[in-house]
């Protein structure tokens, strides 16, 4: 994924690694950029299903 603020490309594991100390980690659906700290919500389940429905091959 690509940070919408700084453009840094990272994966979810890298983002999670910076958050594991937080007590809210397990319940948090935010994705944090390891470079600049900008956070965005992860894709919701509804959106994933819609995307899957539109592009079933992906």
């Amino acid at each position, binding site marked *: 994924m690509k940070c*919408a*603020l*700084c*453009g840094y490309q990272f994966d979810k594991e890298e983002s999670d690694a*910076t958050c594991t100390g*937080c007590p809210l980690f397990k319940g948090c659906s935010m994705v944090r950029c390891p470079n600049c*700290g900008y956070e965005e*919500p992860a894709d919701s389940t509804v959106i994933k299903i819609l995307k899957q429905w539109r592009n079933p091959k992906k």
Partner: protein
Amino acid sequence: MSSLFKRGRHRQRKGSGHHHGAKTISITGLDKVALVGSPNTGKSVMFHNLTGAYATVSNYPGTTVEVSRGKGRIRQKEFEVIDTPGMYSLLPITEDERVARTLLLEEKPDVVIQLVDAKNLERMLPLTLQLLEAGLPMILDLNMGDEAEKLGITIDTKRLEEELGIPVVLTTATTGQGMKTLEEHVIKHSKATNALRIKYHAYIESSLETIISLLQSDYQLSKRAIGLLLLQEDQEITNLIQTQEPENFSRIKAVVAETQQRYTHSLNYLINRRRQWEAKGIVSNSMTFPSEVQSTFREKLSRLMMKPITGIPILLLVLYFGLYQFVGVFGAQTLVDFLEEVVFGEYFNPFITELFSTYVSYIPLQELFVGEYGIITLGIRYAIALILPIVGTFFIAFSIIEDTGYLPRMALLIDRVFKKIGLNGRAVIPMILGFGCSTMATIVTRTLETRRERVIATFLLALAIPCSAQMGVLLGILTGNPLATLIWVITLVGIFLLIGFLTARLMPGDSPSFYMEIPPLRMPNLSNVLIKTYTRVEWYFKEVFPIFIVASIVIWIGQITGLFDQVLNILAYPVTWIGLPREAAVAFLFGFFRRDYGAAGLYDLQQSGVLSGIPLVVSAVTLTLFVPCIAQFSVTIKERGVKTALAVALFIFPFAFIVGFLLNAILISLGVQL
């Protein structure tokens, strides 16, 4: 294996080396200048420029790698010059690189000149960053300057010097251009006190801190560089540490293993990627390439957006139409009025209240759901009639700003303005623009070096960073009164500037670059905007809904026990002290749960006519500064301990009200009419 403690002795084998010139060179006791760099950067030519005819070439002991040594003279001072084999990284792969690193460490040069190809600076800067981390006394020589010029590349060496914190010289070794400047720097050489220091991921930084504390011996490299090489699993360094730190080696190894487990990618990959990112940022700030000079409308507009003199008016226009009009007027007035007064006021609330009155005879249970602070009549009403339209329109506006590519331009503009006044934009901008809570930011403070810095940073985060949704709700309250909005905005801007100033003072050594990839400007894509808005609204409601319901339940319990009224009576003292009506105490009580819940409480008071004018803006400012929400408070306890967390909260509470008091007094004394 070479020792990293003692100076090695270079042997010249008989018959295997060759001399240039007839004289035997004596280089013992002279200051050493080491030339380092990748192959094909002109090191040999530079070596010849510095040494003339007097040099020896021989194999490094035990290897087939050739090393050239010579004597150079600058003004009256003589130097030993060493031409090291080509290297790309301090983590060696080839024998050449191994010898080059060993030479640097064993010979302990007084000056290290790194030669890079000026056309390909971005590829070569990662080595520069490693050498800086190692604590070596550096000069960066951008060689082959003539070739870069032919290609239309312009290099701002002054900017590079500022970014890196070391002397930077542009040379063309083949013609001698730039040699005088280089020689001046060699004469004046001293270890850089302001060299760039990259910050890696928070967890890697935390592990580095631990490793550094476990390294007891002295090394030719800085302990930070040793720590990084250990994390990158450099075998030679690992073996060295095993020998030199027998007591702590197993702990160091455990830290390395534990750090690696946190990431899917290897630490070597992550560390190198971070350096490459930093190199990209430095190059983008100090070099221009011919392809960048375009005159399309989008490029012109993009440049205008990022220059402070034109960028600030553009930003104000975007904020006015995007936030003030769309969120504040359309969202917070038109939509909210419709949902509150028509949907809930005329239909839903009367219906549900009637339903409960008819079928639920137990009064406390009626109160729980449909009372003054009931789950449905307050909690759900706040969430759907008030928060949803404001936050929804706010997220739409934000998603459009993001999808057009304006967001990084806005961040860069704010950062440039901050830098001009000596502040630290990097510490503030992601927090302002991000939707995450300050909770995470509190965790990042663990990477600060001293306890004092950590406590102060934690305090700043708790005090003054509002979440974006809270800002949206408060904006909704203040819209319709431009002067009130202006006062609130000025107060917020003042807070952000204060945070920027304090973090710049408290966190020295932070990278001066705030590099972002700037995507092309484009028209927003409707489906992207809708997807982003939906994702954010869904996330927000998942967070907020349960809290609003829990808050209603807690207040209900408080009402039954009488505790609610007692707390309100206590809160009424500071509230009335700052010129607000007693009823505003409820909003501050809500603010303990979540700040946006408190903002929603203010909105209700404004709608009912209880809050207006000066008290409205004073309450908005005070609530912005108010105590952290429960989530952030609990993280502060975990990161800083109970005592510090309580101290922070106990400071912020009176501080927020003192600011409210002062603002109220100033506005009244100035006779401001709102």
